[in-house]
């Protein structure tokens, strides 16, 4: 157990709690804010793991843009500000499913990668140089595809939210 691990544990706990809070908050805006915390914690995890680029991209995009988007969405859809039951009647079953998933994943993880005897790995090769090289040489095709995807998403969003002028 070294310093990174402790830091990670703290970050992880915070992130977990806030993640649970996201899905159980009564107030939608509170849920969005908890989401910010969760995303931040994920970003910090990335940083701790040595993937600086991904970490900062995460914070930049997720926290900076996507959460804003969410807030805009909440505003535009007149999300009820204030206390409200935001859960539907499937709560119990969903909880069961979620717990089962968690249990299953954990058990598989523990079965596959024993906690005690694991050797702490070196940090991830998260240097921007390495990442950039890989991205623009080996994986340029997926990169271009993702660009297209984003373009399509952009156009799609515009088309969808355009008001019908009676065409």
């Amino acid at each position, binding site marked *: 157990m070294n310093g990174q691990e402790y830091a990670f544990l703290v970050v992880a706990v915070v992130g977990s709690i806030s993640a649970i809070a996201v899905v159980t908050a009564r107030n939608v805006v509170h849920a969005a804010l908890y989401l910010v915390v969760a995303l931040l914690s994920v970003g910090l995890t990335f940083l701790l793991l040595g993937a600086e680029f991904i970490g900062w991209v995460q914070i930049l995009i997720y926290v900076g843009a996507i959460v804003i988007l969410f807030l805009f969405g909440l505003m535009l859809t007149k999300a009820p500000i204030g206390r409200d039951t935001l859960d*539907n009647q*499937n709560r119990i*079953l*969903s909880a069961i*499913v979620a717990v*089962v*998933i968690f249990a*299953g994943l954990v058990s*598989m993880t523990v079965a596959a990668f024993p906690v005690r005897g694991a050797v702490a790995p070196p940090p991830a090769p998260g240097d921007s140089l390495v990442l950039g090289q890989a991205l623009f040489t080996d994986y340029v095709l997926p990169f271009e595809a993702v660009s297209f995807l984003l373009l399509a998403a952009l156009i799609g969003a515009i088309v969808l939210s355009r008001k019908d002028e009676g065409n």
Partner: protein
Amino acid sequence: MVGLLGLLASEGGETAETIVRGAPNWFVTHAYLIPLLPFASAIVILFFGKPTPGKGTIYGILAVGAAFVMSLGALMSFANGGGTYEANIDWFTIGTLHLELGIYIDGLAAAMLVVVTAISLMVHIYSLGYMKGDVRYTWFYFVLSMFTGAMLVVVVSSNVIQLLIGWEIMGVCSYLLIGHWFEEKENSNAGIKAFITTRIGDVPMMFGFFMLIAATGTTTANIPLIAEAVANPTVSALYISVAAILVFGGTIGKSAQFPLHVWLPDAMAGPTPVSALIHAATMVAAGVYLVGRLFEVFVQADPWVLTTVSIVAAITMLGAAILAVAQDDIKRVLAYSTLSQLAYMVAGLSMGEAGMTAGFFHLFTHAFFKALLFLGAGSVIHAVHSNNMSDMGGLRHKMPITFWTMLVGSLSLAGIFPLAGFWSKDELLVVADETHTYWLLGFFLVTAALTAFYTTRMVLLTFFGEYKGHAHPHESPRSMTIPLILLAGATLSVGFLGSAWVGSVFADWVYFGAPPEEKFMIGFALIGTVMAVGGILVGYRMYRERKAVDPMETALGPVWKVLLNRYYIDAFYMRWIVYPIRDTWSAGVYWFNQHILDAIVNGAAALARGLSKLVSWFDRNVIDGFLNGAAGITGETGGLLKYLQSGNVQWYAVGLFTGVITLTVFFIRLS
């Protein structure tokens, strides 16, 4: 007809026995054709009659004509000294009883064949004119042919069962013919009365036959063999007497003797040719023929049997003659006259062996002149459109042929020399004297006088005086007058066949035991003639001028009413026999049938219905229940499953995740 079928169907098919005495000619050996020809023509008429021009009458006339020729041929065989002939084929055997079909031709049978075919031929020709335009013209000829065939079967039969078959067919045909115009209820009633009354006589006759068959040890129904068995002294005389009386019952019925005489006057409801054929010459003669055929039985029986026969005949003879005096309907006069003359024949037979020849000779002559009288009456009725003599009168100028022929017939009936009736009645008188049955002789003489009296009455009322009716009478067509002329000729001539004066040929043909010696006794001839002429004179005096009220009515006073009601015998039968059976017994049997027999049938039906209800319940609820249940389960399941389609995306997602988890776990476990 049945004989023909039996011939065709019998297993053996060969002749069982052929007994030949003397030298019979071809006509005798093939005498089985004589009944077959009319039966064949009946079938042809039935199927091909209507389309044939003339409506099928030609077949009947040809067939009966051919049968007549064959009968003459058969009689010639006996005239030439030929002997009796018998031929049988096996029919079937039950236990020890061996039944055959066959013919037995002796002189008696040959003479009867001639009589039956001759009269039938005359009636066939006569009906061409008389029944012209009738609603059932072809049917009439069909039944005529059937009847002729049946009577011929009776005549040629060699055994009592075959005779019975022909007997019964005759009964049915006479019923059909009497009720020919059944649209009038009283005609069909007359037919039923005739059938049932003769039936009442037929039942004892059948039992008589059974007794006779039993007397042979139940081995055969053959007539000559029965005669042999009966002649055997081991058979008790009482047994034979009872059998004889029973058989005589059939004669009482068919030949209309007292007390079963009631059907014959009513049977005049039938067409006149039918009356001529059936009730003058053939069917009623069948009863007499029966006695003649089984004469051995009567001879071997105790004397009281023949005495009873005589008494019955005597009562009938005189009673019917008295009734004939009181009739207005011309056919009724002739009907009662027939009853009386039949009684003559039966009385003749009742006098034993000697009387057999005389009795049958009277049958022979009577057939011709009675048929002549009936056909002549039919001619008159056809012209005047009425049966009643009160509508007639003065017809001798308008219908000369009918008049002269009927005059011949009437004189013969009255017994005037030298006509046929004179000779046959005279024979009977002689035999009565020979057998010393003087009381019967007295009956003969009194009845002869009465016969002459009512005959004169009939002729005077019909042909003399002023015409009282409303129609326009004229002579009948040739098809009707030719038979009249032929029969008149026969009446003039056949008397000499049996006349003792010229040496009776008839006696050589028809006899029992040995041919009787015929002697002509002038004394009886004179007495008979005196009685006849006396009757004619009295009749002439009373009926010479037509009076408003019948002179006999004034003469007899209250007795006239009794005569009009036929001595109340018919009323007695109706009140004490017919009505109780019809109203009480029939009602009781009907009740039994409706409530008990039908209840059983209905109960069975109800049971079936109940069972079917059960089965249908089972089908509806159990079998259909399965199907409905399957459908219901499907429906219910669908109803439950539909909740899966909640429309809620998250619900679907739950299912998705659950599935993913399950599969993942599953695959992980596997690996």
